[in-house]
């Protein structure tokens, strides 16, 4: 059983740092930036390498739980955050990749983590980001008469004064 003892704050910080060094050793060049905000680890990685990192994490830890995928529209580009929880180390890890706003395309991770199926679809519906290789990536959020090419959570979508 993994869960029943709560690690102290120092242990947690140690865990976070050890994970970071482990990743840095393995994927030196792929990690662009990293910071620790309140025991949460945020890592910026390249779009080419993030699948490899996820695969490595999934294989090395038993509980590698995908919280969700967050997309953020920074008006110049899209940021995708993969929030992951490592059960053994009790560490919250956030991989950040940046993709261009003009042709938002990114490879899927459903083959690595089946749970990502619903989260990728959600992001696709609301941001119009295409996950290449996703088994059922259909554009079907919102009602049937929702216009094509309009994505409500993008920053350039302004909510009109709907009656």
């Amino acid at each position, binding site marked *: 059983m993994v869960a029943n003892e709560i690690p102290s704050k120092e242990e947690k910080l140690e865990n976070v740092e050890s994970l970071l060094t482990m990743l840095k050793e393995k994927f030196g060049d792929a990690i662009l930036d990293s910071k620790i905000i309140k025991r949460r680890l945020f890592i910026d990685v390249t779009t080419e390498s993030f699948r490899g990192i996820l695969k490595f994490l999934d294989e090395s830890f038993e509980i590698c739980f995908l919280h969700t995928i967050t997309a953020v529209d920074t008006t110049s580009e899209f940021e995708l955050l993969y929030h992951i929880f490592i059960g053994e180390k009790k560490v919250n890890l956030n991989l950040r990749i940046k993709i261009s706003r003009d042709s938002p395309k990114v490879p899927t991770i459903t083959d690595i983590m089946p749970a990502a199926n619903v989260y990728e679809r959600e992001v696709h519906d609301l941001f119009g980001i295409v996950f290449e290789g996703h088994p059922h990536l259909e554009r079907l959020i*919102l*009602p049937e008469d*929702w216009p094509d090419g309009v994505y*409500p959570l993008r920053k350039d979508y302004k*909510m*009109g*004064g*709907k*009656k």
Partner: protein
Amino acid sequence: MAILSKVVNWARRSSPWVLHFNSGSCNGCDIEILAALTPRFDVERFGITLQGSPRHADVLLITGPVTEQVKKRLVRIYNQMPDPKFVIVVGTCGCTGGVFSGSYSTNNGVDNVIPVDVYIPGCPPRPQQIIDAVVKLLAKLSPNKDKNGGTNNGGK
């Protein structure tokens, strides 16, 4: 015939069968409607029972601000109900849109979609309020209208 219509009127007042429809509510109102069925409030005292099929119902209890997705369903269920039928809106977001007003996927209130008889504001209204609304709706049917305060003045 006057007696017959009186009897029918009495029967309608005495036996409101309710269909509950969630049109995108946050569940708050829904659990309060369910709570109204349970021992502390027990609406079966007034002959109110919750029905499963729209064909059996007299009163449609609607919660939620009517999302775009559910709009057509709501109209369809309303059309499936046999006449005479009544609509009660439970909760602020069903009355006006409430906290969700202005969203791209809600309709800002049930009355933009189907006609409404009684509005119950509150987020969510207490079970007592819901029972009170049903009783006031029935008072609307009563021939001596002044008895329970009335017709269309919001049932004061």
